[in-house]
C-alpha cells in the first residue's frame, strides 16, 4: 500500500500553479529581452548615425588640415608674413638630443660629414 504524505500532496498541488507562473515569467522574460534587444538596436542605430556624422566631419577636417599643411600654403604664409627663406645648407644647425647627460645643457659642435 502506498502512503502519500500530506506534505507531498501540498507540493503536487503547488507544482502546477508554480509551473504556470514560471512559464508566464519565462514568456514575459522573453518579450522583455526581445524588447531590450530592439531598444539596443535603436540605440546602436542612433549611435551609428552620430558616428557617420562625426566621420563626415572628420573627413572635412582632414581635408582642411591637408590643405593648410600644403607646401604652397606654408610657403606663402611664412615667406610673406614672416620673411622665411629656404635655408642655405651652411647655415643649417642640426638639433640633436643627447641621452644621459646633465639636464638643460646645450653646446655647439662641428662634425665632419660622413665621419665617425
Amino acid at each position, binding site marked *: 500500500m502506498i502512503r502519500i504524505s500530506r506534505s507531498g500532496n501540498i507540493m503536487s498541488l503547488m507544482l502546477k500553479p508554480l509551473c504556470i507562473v514560471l512559464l508566464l515569467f519565462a514568456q514575459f522574460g522573453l518579450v522583455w529581452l526581445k524588447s531590450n534587444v*530592439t531598444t539596443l*538596436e535603436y540605440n546602436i*542605430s542612433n549611435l551609428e548615425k552620430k558616428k557617420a556624422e562625426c566621420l563626415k566631419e572628420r573627413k572635412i577636417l582632414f581635408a582642411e588640415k591637408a590643405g593648410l599643411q600644403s607646401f*604652397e600654403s606654408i610657403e606663402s604664409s611664412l615667406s610673406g608674413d614672416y620673411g622665411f627663406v*629656404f635655408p642655405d645648407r651652411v647655415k643649417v644647425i642640426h638639433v640633436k*638630443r643627447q641621452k644621459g647627460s646633465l639636464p638643460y645643457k646645450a653646446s655647439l659642435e662641428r662634425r665632419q660629414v660622413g665621419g665617425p
Partner: protein
Amino acid sequence: MNKKRWIILNTIIIFSFFAVFLRLIDLMILNHKLLSAKAKQQHIKAEDIQARRGAIFDRQGRELALNLELESLYCEPEVINRDDKNIKKLASAMGKEPEVIFTKIPASGKFAWVERKLEPSVAERIRELNIKGIGFMNEAKRIYPKGRLASHILGFVGVDNQALEGIELQYDRYLKARGGKIFFGRDAGGRTLSPGIDKEVKGNNIVLTIDEGLQGIVEKEIEKAMLKWKASAASVIMMDPFTGEILALANRPSHNPNDAGNYRDFEKKNRSITDLYEPGSTFKIVVGVAALEEKITGPDTLYDVSQGGIEVGGKIIRDVHKHGVLTFKEVIQKSSNVGSIMIGMKLGKEKIYKYARLLGVGEKTRIDLPGEVSGWIHPPERWSATSIGAITIGQEVAVTPLQILRAYSAIANGGFLVRPHVVSEIISSEGQMLFSFADKEKNRVISQKTAKTFRQILKGVVWEGGTGGSASVKGNEVAGKTGTAQIIDPITKRYSKQKYVSSFVGFVPADNPRFALIVVVYEPKGQIYGGVVAAPVFRDIADKSLSYLDIPREDNPYETLLVVSR
C-alpha cells in the same frame, strides 16, 4: 441567463471566431505572398553600401587625394510644387538664378538631380526651407587638398567618381571599391535598426614616390620660368636615377583637379610623357656614349672644328660659336655640332641607332601613367643623306622629356636603364601592404667605365667655358647638358626661326647623385638657349631640393650640431 440568449451569445462567439479564422486564412494563405512582400517593403529597408575610392598619399604619407561626404540634392517632380515661390527660395539658397533651377526639374517623373555634391552650408540652408518633394542623398566627392600640386600625376575623376586621368585612371581597379546593398529593419516611424555592418567600403590606398616638398619646389620654379620667359609650355621631372622613382613631375599649363571640368584639354595634358620634341644637344649623349663604348674616341681625343661648319649630304651644319681644336670632352662641354657630327660620322648610322635604342629612344619607358608615347627614331635604312648630321645633334628624332631623363640617369647610376614609376606601394584599407614596386630587371646598357667617364665630361658642361654654367649649384657639383632645338613650323613644315625648345638635363651631386632632373621650356621669348633659359631653372630647383633633402655641401665638410640634453 435563459437558453435563447445563451445560444445567441454562443453563435456570435462562434461566428466571430469563424470570421477571425477566415481572415487568418485570407492573410496567411490566400494573400500571403502579396502581404509578406508588402510587410517586407515596409519593415526592411535596403540601402546602397557606399563605395569610396582609396586615398592617395605622397612618399611621406601626406594626403594628395581624399574623399569628402557631401549631400546631393534631388527632387521628385511629381511631388514638388513648381510654383515660383518655392523655386525662388531654392535658387536663392543655392546662389543661382531661378531659371537654372527650373531647367533641372522636369515636369514629370519620379527622380531628378537638382545639384550634385553641395557645400555643407548650402545643404543646410536648403534643408531649412523645408520644401516638399526635395531630398538629399549622401555622395562621396573626390578632393585634392593640395590643389594644382602634382595634378598631372594624380589625374582626376568625373562627377560619378569615375576615373578619367592620371593615377586615378591607371590604378582605378585598385582605388575603386565595389558597393552592393545592405538590408536592415525599420519601424512604422521610420526608425532604423542597426544592421551591425559597416555601410561603407573603401578601396585600396596608394602611396606615390612623389615627395610633396620636392613637388612644391618644382611647381614654384616652373611657374616662375613660365612667367619670366613667357613660354607656351614647360615640363620638369625629377627622378631618383638609381631606382627610377619619380620624385616630382610638373607641367605648365596645368589645371586644378578639383575643378577639372573647367579646364581645356591642353591644360590637362601630361606633356612630360605625351608630347614629343626634338631634343637638340641633349641627344649628344647618344653619340658620346657610343663613341666611348666603341672605343672610337677617348676623353682627350682631338677634333679640329675650327672651320665652324661641316658638310653633311650637301648641307652645311654650323656651330653657334666658332671653336679651334677641341678635345672630345670639350666637344660635349661646348656643345659643338661640328665635333659631334665628326664623331657621329666615325661611328656610322648603325651604331648611332643601336645606342639610341639602348638608351631607350623610340620606346616607352613603361611609366605607370596613362598616355605615354614612344617617340621615334627611324631605322638606319630610312635615313637620308643628311640624317647622320641631323640625328647626331638631336634633330630628326622625337623624344619625351622622360626618355631623355632616363638616358641621363643611366650615366648617373653607372650604366643601368631604370624603369620610371610613380607608385611605390598599394595598401589595403585595413593598412595591409598589397603590392610594393620591385623592378627586378637590372638592365645594363653601358659599361660602368663609360658611365663614369661620361659623368666627368658632363661635369665640364657646368664649369666655366661650358654651355651650362648657370646650372651650377653652390656647394655641389652638377653634371648635365644643355639643349636648344628648333621647332618645326606646322605651316611652312620647316624649322621655325622664332620657336625653340630650351632644355637642361643633369644630376646632382655629380659623383653621388641624389636626383636627376630635366627642365624643358617650350617657345621661350627673348632668349632661346638651354644654358640661358632652362639651366637657371635647374639650378634653382636643385639648390632648394638639396636643402630640402638635407644633402650637405661638398665645400663644407662640417655640419653644425646643436646638442641638447635633458
